[in-house]
Structures are given as structure tokens and as C-alpha cells.
């Protein structure tokens, strides 16, 4: 085995391969930065006519989009932004408590077999395409939920949010928020479930040994432990809701107001759905305008996810 002994000292090409591999890995890491920058830059360049182009033409484009309601880019994008945030926050509000409930049910109440099955279902639901939520929401939920909204408008109408009359069919912010809530529910549920399951046994047992009931144990040990995870899951879900397109497009009757009348139609619109709605008929400048709104959406989700990440970081530190 003399040849073997010789090569054993000098493995073939090992060093170069090492360097190349390291370089490639490094490049791929850097590429992430490049890609994000590229997203920003390409959107920015394509939206450039908004800033550097003929402003008169711009304002004409915007008024053609809005039927004359707005004539400047900001006058256009701010109500959209308001609508986007309103719908997403509502969806989060609805989904939050339900998700935590389900997550606790899976992690602490359900028998093990059922819990595994449920976890699986929840993960699956996270992958259902939004166009299907759109179909379902627009065709099934809208007529089905009207009596409920009507009841709410009649009995809780004194609250500005629920001011009647409830639109029929209810292609309203309230209904869209429900659909978005259903869509983000699996995200919050599966993340908080994972965290709840990781609650140290020690802390749970510490609570129980003090004579805590199950709920008190959850309050003492599980929820404080899971707090940061719940928050970051919610932020991620919020990010998803902010960017949801098809479901909103297929359900919501849009408007361009700073309105919180959730049960009335034609009040708000979201940026993403607006892009999808206007894009097909937009001319060159129109596309620039829409990409400009997309850039705003990008920045908003960027900030939300950034905050989410910072919160998790702080909590784990």
C-alpha cells in the first residue's frame, strides 16, 4: 500500500476544493443581500417615472385610476395603505385569540393522537393556495355571513366600527378580515404550538406543584414562556396578511376612503389587491404607479418583519 501512504499525505485537490466551496458559500450568503437590494432597485427603477417623469402625466394617471378622487401619488397610496393596515390588523385581531386557543388545545389539552392529527391539519391549511380562499370567500362565505353582520349592525351599530346598514352582499372589510384571519390562523397556530410544546417541563411542574389548576399553570408557565414567540408569529402573520392579494381581490368591494365602517361596502382597498385589479388595464405610466405602490408595500412588510425579528432576538437574548 505504498501508493496509498504517499497520497495520504497529499490528498488530491483538497485545498482548492476547500477554497472554492468556501467561496461559493460565501457568495451565496452575500447573494441574499444582493437579491434584496435588487428587489428594491428594480422596483425603484421601474417606478422612477413617478419621481423623474412628467408630473402632469403622473397626476393624470392617478386620477384615471381613482376616477378623479386623487391626483397625486401620495393621495393615492395613503388611503390604500390605510386600507391595507386596517384589514390586516383586523385579521390579526380575529386570528390571534383563536390561534392561541387552538395552539393551547393542541399542546396542552388534546390527547396525544388527536394533537398530532390536528397539527398535521393545521400545517396543511397553511399551504392552501389563496386563490382557493378567494373562491370560497367570495362564493360561499359572503352570502353566508350576511345575517351575522346584519345582526351586528343592528345591535352594535352604535359602535362606529359596526355602523350600519350592513352591506348585502357583504363584500366588506369585515368579511375579508375573516377570510384573512382564516388564512393566517395556521401560521400563528403552528408557530405558537411549537413554542408552547417547548415550555420547559420544569416550569410546568413547578406551577402544578404549587397547587395550580391547568389554566393557572398555563398562565404561570406556558404563556410567559411563549410570549415572544407569539408576538413574532403574529408579526409574521401580519406580514402575510399585508401582502395577501387574491383573496382580497376576489372578495372585497373596494373604496379609497379613510373609513372604519367595517360593515359597509366600497370603503377601503389594499395595496396588493389594488395592484392586481389595476395592472391588466394599466398603461406604461400606470404600471410605474402601481409598482410605486408595490414598493411602499415592500417597505411596510420589510419594517413589520424587521420588528418581528428584533422582538424575537430580544426575547431569546
Amino acid at each position: 500500500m505504498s501508493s496509498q501512504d504517499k497520497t495520504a499525505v497529499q490528498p488530491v485537490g483538497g485545498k482548492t476544493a476547500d477554497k472554492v466551496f468556501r467561496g461559493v458559500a460565501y457568495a451565496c450568503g452575500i447573494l441574499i443581500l444582493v437579491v434584496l437590494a435588487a428587489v428594491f432597485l428594480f422596483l425603484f427603477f421601474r417606478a422612477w417615472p413617478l419621481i423623474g417623469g412628467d408630473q402632469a402625466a403622473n397626476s393624470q394617471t392617478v386620477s384615471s385610476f381613482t376616477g378623479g378622487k386623487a391626483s397625486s401619488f401620495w393621495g393615492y397610496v395613503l388611503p390604500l395603505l390605510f386600507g391595507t393596515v386596517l384589514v390586516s390588523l383586523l385579521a390579526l385581531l380575529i386570528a390571534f385569540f383563536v390561534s392561541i386557543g387552538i395552539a393551547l388545545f393542541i399542546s396542552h389539552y388534546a390527547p396525544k393522537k388527536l394533537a398530532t392529527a390536528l397539527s398535521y391539519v393545521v400545517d396543511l391549511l397553511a399551504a392552501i393556495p389563496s386563490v382557493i380562499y378567494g373562491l370560497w370567500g367570495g362564493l360561499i362565505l359572503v352570502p353566508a355571513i350576511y345575517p351575522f353582520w346584519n345582526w351586528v349592525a343592528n345591535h352594535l351599530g352604535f359602535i362606529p366600527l359596526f355602523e350600519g346598514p350592513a352591506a348585502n352582499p357583504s363584500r366588506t372589510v369585515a368579511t375579508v378580515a375573516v377570510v384573512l384571519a382564516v388564512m393566517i390562523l395556521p401560521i400563528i397556530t403552528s408557530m405558537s404550538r411549537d413554542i408552547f410544546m417547548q415550555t420547559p417541563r420544569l416550569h410546568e411542574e413547578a406551577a402544578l406543584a404549587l397547587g395550580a389548576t391547568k389554566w393557572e399553570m398555563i398562565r404561570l408557565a406556558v404563556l410567559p414562556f411563549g410570549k415572544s414567540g407569539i408576538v413574532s408569529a403574529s408579526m409574521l402573520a401580519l406580514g402575510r396578511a399585508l401582502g395577501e392579494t387574491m383573496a382580497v381581490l376576489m372578495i372585497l368591494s373596494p373604496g379609497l376612503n379613510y373609513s372604519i365602517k367595517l360593515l359597509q361596502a366600497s370603503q377601503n382597498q389594499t395595496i396588493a389587491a389594488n395592484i392586481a385589479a389595476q395592472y391588466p388595464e394599466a398603461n406604461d405610466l400606470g404600471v410605474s404607479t402601481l409598482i410605486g405602490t408595490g414598493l411602499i408595500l415592500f417597505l411596510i412588510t420589510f419594517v413589520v418583519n424587521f420588528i418581528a425579528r428584533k422582538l424575537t432576538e430580544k426575547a431569546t437574548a
Partner: protein
Amino acid sequence: MDGTPEIDFDRFRPTRSAIQRRNIMDRFMWALIAVAFVIACIPLISLLWTTIVNGIKRLNLNFLSYNMTGVVGGSQTPSGGYGGVLHAIIGTLEITAGAMVISIPIGLMCAVYLVEYSNRGKLATTISLLVDVMSGIPSIVAGLFAFSMFTILLGPGTINGFEGSVALSLLMLPTVVKSSEEMLKIVPNDLREASLALGVTKQRTITKIVLRTALPGIVSGAILAIARVIGETAPLLMTAGYISSTNVNLFSGQMTTLPVFVYQEYSKLSANCPPNADATCVTTIPMERAWAAALVLIVIVLLLNLIGRIVAKVFAVKTER
């Protein structure tokens, strides 16, 4: 123990009402949680049920083996069907495969960088922060990005399947990085050291030991990432377009994917029949096709999830005894 306060513990003894209150609270929360669960089930069951019931009607072999060429109004095609999704299935598979080919190697190598090379320096923290942030990019923004990039680089009017792949890969990339990173992290350091101590270079240690050990996890993570993007509609409408015939060339010509197909059929809503048409002409056929395609899509997503999980479970490498 001087200075110890005297405590009358009977005052802190739980009173009957306090115990009762706590028990009620306990039951109440249990009920609340159960109710939350039931409430959440209603829409989800309704969604699945609607899709299955409506979708099963037109879901047959013919639907899966034809495209939409030569389909006119509600009339039957020569093969006795009403058009199908073959082209959309092919488009979906190719575009998703394209996205995979772009994002999996990059994402995996990025994860390798983060876990194996970065030493958790400033660059690495920035990268993993941005990966997290990137996972929140709205899909429509990804679509606009791919669209802008192709118009700027290749001239306006460029629409092809690959453009869709680029948009989807932007959405997949962070998921792939995150899941691969997790998988690489759980490869015990013991194994790296064992390999390095044998005088193996770092590159071979990573490719032959670390990646090999993490492979099932990486594969299942990638499959789940695919399941996430396979249902995207909005970005593909603007990047990959729509065509009724089968296009197998990813790099030229438009391509239809299943979600876009669902949306287009929904947009048609109903079809017309010639005045003296017989009963084989179905005016509601577009919606029926939409539901059937939605069902196909759900089944594909389901299968991918299942495969992902099975891969993770069956091929899992037992690193602990």
C-alpha cells in the same frame, strides 16, 4: 431566626369560594379554548368540503389529460370532455421546478455559509436578519420584481415561465435558507469534529458528512417550501401569463399554472351555448373547471406535504442513540 415575621397562615388558606372561583375559571378557559377550536374548524371544514364537493364533479381522467385548446363555449370536445388542466399541471410543475433549481442551491449554500463558515459574525447576523425579513415579501411584490427585472434586462413584453420561476424563487429562498439552516444546526458537532479529526478537509466534511446527515431534513424542508409557492397566483399572472395550449418550453412563451387556471376559469364564470345546442353543452362549465382544478391543486399540495413529512420521518438519520 430573629426578625422573622409572624404569619397567620389561616388567613391565606384558600376559602371555599376562592377554590370554587378557580375551578370555574379553569373550566371556563377550557371551554373557551375548545370553542376557539370549534370556531376555527367551521371555515376550514367548509372550505375543504366546498372544494371537494364542487371539484369532484368534473375531476376525471379526461380533465387531467387534455388542455384547453379547441374548447369553445360550453360545448363538448371531440374527446367527450370539456377541456382540462394538463397544460396547467405541466406549467405548474415546470415553473415550480425552475424556482427550485434557482432557490435550493442558493438557499442551501447560504445556510452552509451561515452555519459552517460565518462564525456568527456581523455579516452573518445581517444575512439571517434579512432572510427573516425576506420571508415576508408579499407575493405580488415578488411578481412585480420579476416583471421589472425582465422588462429592464430583456426588454419590455418579456413573459415566460422562467420569469415566473424567478418570482417564485424569491418567495422560496428564505424558506429554504431557514429550514436548511435549522437542519444543519441540529447535525451534532461531534460528527464535524470526528471527520475533521480524521484529516478530512472542511469542504468534504460538509458535503459528505454534514449535508449527508441533514439531507432528509433539507429535502423535506424544500418540499414544504415548494408546497408554499405552488399555489401562488398573482405573481404568475403578471410574469408567466396564460395560454390554453401546452407549452413545455420554460424559457419562451407563456405558461399557465393551476392557480392561474383556477382564477381564469372563475373569471369566465359561465360559457355560452349555440342556440340549438343539445344537453352536452354545459353553460356552467368554467366554474366547474375552476373547482376541479382547485381540487387538483389541493391534492398536489397535500401530496407534497405528505411526501415532505414521510421523507423527514422515514429517512431521518438517527443522530442520537
